[in-house]
């Protein structure tokens, strides 16, 4: 199931939305999807709540042993957990973690994938062959195996950036999901590099790196944005899955996945502890997926929706 994000077909890009008027065009297509607008709404609320979590009166790590396993109430809207911590606070801060992991993982995948796919597509020949075999190799690993092993490996290195292994998990997910980006970028570059404006840029003496980053990448942006959006949702699901197994974000740093892992130990006694984090994952992922779907419609001219 985790292979999904890797299986998206590379879609070549035509330079339809170019320069001026692009945003309006995108917006025109995008707003035709009411669910995507709802998705934007949900995602905005969740993001804002996570960002402004500090306004919420409870601390996610402050323990109150006299008030363990309280059911939802006015005081604790989502109840309290096994250590008497306010679940709402943990979910708000957990949302930060899950969103940060999702975005950072996708950013990692984009950087790696764009570098590998871009070089392969731009230079072609041996570099292309070698890099694409590397991509094939990466795709021949069972992805869940790779995820779990890498999470073991990186977790113990205790990367300093964030606590609870946030950086490690983001890196792990990024390292296992760059392949589709690489293929996408390569396919786009193969098409774009033959176009006149690239020849022109080269004639003006622009360096290869500059051509790739300044001229070619923006023209491959459409499908990449779609891929990245859906990738964030996917990374959030993967993070929650790994944390659920106990291999992801380490408690007491909250993430939706490890809140669920914790809650599962008292599933039938205190079901609300399991329901809320699950709902949050569900809402976030579905919102992002709707947005991604609409973006695909708006940005990706080759994708078929029948709306043409």
């Amino acid at each position: 199931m985790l292979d999904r994000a890797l299986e998206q077909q590379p879609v070549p890009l035509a330079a339809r939305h170019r320069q001026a008027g692009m945003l309006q065009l995108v917006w025109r297509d995008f707003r035709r999807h009411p669910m995507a607008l709802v998705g934007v709404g949900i995602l905005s609320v969740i993001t804002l709540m996570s960002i402004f979590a500090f306004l919420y009166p409870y601390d996610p790590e402050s323990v109150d042993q006299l008030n363990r396993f309280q059911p939802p109430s006015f005081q604790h809207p989502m109840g309290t957990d096994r250590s008497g911590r306010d679940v709402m606070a943990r979910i708000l801060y957990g949302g930060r973690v899950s969103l940060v992991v999702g975005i950072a993982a996708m950013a990692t995948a984009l950087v790696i994938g764009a570098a590998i796919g871009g070089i392969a597509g731009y230079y072609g020949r041996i570099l292309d062959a070698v890099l694409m075999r590397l991509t094939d190799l990466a795709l021949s690993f069972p992805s869940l195996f790779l995820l779990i092993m890498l999470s073991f490996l990186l977790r113990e290195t205790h990367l300093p950036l964030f606590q609870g292994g946030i950086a490690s998990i983001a890196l792990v997910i990024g390292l296992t999901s760059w392949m589709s980006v690489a293929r996408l970028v390569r396919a786009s570059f193969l098409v774009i590099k033959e176009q006149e404006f690239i020849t022109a840029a080269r004639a003006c003496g622009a360096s290869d790196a500059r051509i790739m980053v300044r001229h070619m990448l923006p023209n491959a942006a459409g499908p990449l944005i779609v891929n990245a959006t859906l990738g964030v949702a996917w990374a959030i699901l993967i993070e929650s899955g790994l944390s659920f197994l106990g291999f992801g974000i380490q408690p007491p740093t909250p993430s939706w996945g490890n809140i669920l892992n914790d809650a599962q130990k008292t599933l039938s006694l205190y079901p609300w502890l399991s329901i809320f984090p699950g709902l949050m994952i569900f809402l976030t992922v579905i919102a992002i997926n709707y947005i991604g779907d609409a973006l695909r419609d708006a940005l990706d001219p080759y994708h078929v929706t029948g709306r043409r």
Partner: protein
Amino acid sequence: MARHATIEELLTLYLKGSISRRRFAARLAMLGLSPPAVATLLAACRRAEEGTPAPIVGTPPSGTAVTGATPSPAPSGAAKRGGTIKWADYEPNTLNPYIASEAIARSVIALVNRGLVGVNPNGEAFPVLVTEIPSRENGGLSDDGKVVTWRLKPGLKWSDGQPLTSDDIKFTWEAVRHPESTATQTQGFDLIERIETPDELTAVVYYKEFWTPWVTQFALGILPRHGTGDPSQMGSWKWNRTVNPTNGPFVLEEWQAADHMTFARNEYWHEEGKPYLDRILYPITTELEVQRQMLRTGENDMHHWLADEYVDEVKSWPNVTVKEGPSPYWYRVQFNLTDQGNLNKPHPILGDVRVRRALGLALDRQKILAHWKKVEFMSSMFRGPFACDLPPYEYNPEKAKTLLEEAGWVDRDRDGIREAHGALYAPDGTKLSLRLSSYTGWNREDEQVVMVELWKAIGVEAKIQNYEPTVLYGTWGEGSPARRGDFDILWWDYELGLDPQVKAEDFYASWRIPSEQNPGGFNCTRVNDPEIDEWLRIAGSSTDIEVRRDAYCKIAKKIQEEIVNEWVFGVGYAFSASSARVKGWEMNEAYTPFAIFGWDAENWYIAE
């Protein structure tokens, strides 16, 4: 060593420098005896000196040598034969008692294979396959303790009808001590020089030197010479999966990997009329939640590990019985005395004993363990006949703050965390920030978060940094941070077991400090104190309970007052449950691996 050395001789040899410290340590590590057994042994020795023979070692509490005693009082007339129960639980990895290392495997093995003796909830040995516990009085134990004569009950049979003889005892020893056997329960077996079998019922075990826990030597199980195989291939014996033939109250009928096991009554079990149950069905179930729900709906009759949170809930179910008993796990906070395990370099922060004491004083253990259903607090690791009279560990955050100020840790920048200003080892400005480590997956974070708060209250920052169990418990070569000394504070548990000697050495002996040469050493905080080493040697080489207790208590006192490498908590309670209709079972977890859920399976019966 060509000739047999007594403990005294061994000690003399060591003190003269004739044998290496490692070798001495290895020998001493084997010394140990159950507390009550030591008490009786001691009394016997004294009386023997006075010329009166007396019972020795391992005699059941009643004081009379019991023949064919059952682990727990036989159920009254209510017990009846027949019926099938279900026990939904995890899957064991093997049924070979000398390879198994997990509690669940030991539990299932208790159904199918038994040793010569068992250990009851009081920590006393009782005879299972033998007529009585050997003693000087009954001629089973030589005066120097180096010759043990085991006498099997007559008429014992393997589950295939073949006689179970003294030769099987001999074979068990041959198999386990074989260097290629991959056995993991080997202590004491290499100290046996030979086993003689003058007749089918008698096995005479000759030790190279006195080994105090000899009574539990064959407690884990007996392996049949026929039906198993070559000891060097023990790891891959088919028998490990079939246990056919075996000697327990039940035999394994079927084992469908990861799905189920079924057990049937062993018709050759030696107790008349037992076991009561016809069959035990064992659906392998990997979710605790499902195990519990199955108990509620009657699809499961035995529930081994009842989580603390569920105790009250499950007790309220009308069709379920819940029992409790001390768990084998002893929990404590440990402070690393060294910088990254370097014995010559004290830990920059924890190197100062005042800091360690302050950290301890800030810990309110009631609060830390408040979520445990039941706890027994201990002021040292020594219990039973070795319990020491120590002042209880106190909780006093004010005193802790004063100590920290004294030690040069002050919060001048008012950020809530103290910094070094004239501390013993830390350069000025160092933050009083430490890593608090444990293993993942077993809710150790529950206690850690409380500790973090308590330390925060005295201006100490603790960051939780946990490792997977296989990482934390790994060997030196595998890079275990605990063994490498790459930690600040540890919060973990340890099985205390029957006799304190081995554990005390593990915790405090300088020769148990982990290193490349000693990859499995357990003295992770690096207590390196010649006085403690000496007391450990004295305790380990003495059969006198007073001498031993005296030595242990000196150790405990020094640890508590001067070394402070640990702050001691306690032993939690374990809970198990069964359908109300299943009777005759008792908890017996405190002395694993010799005692475990399932130890009395022959007494289980269904009451209607």
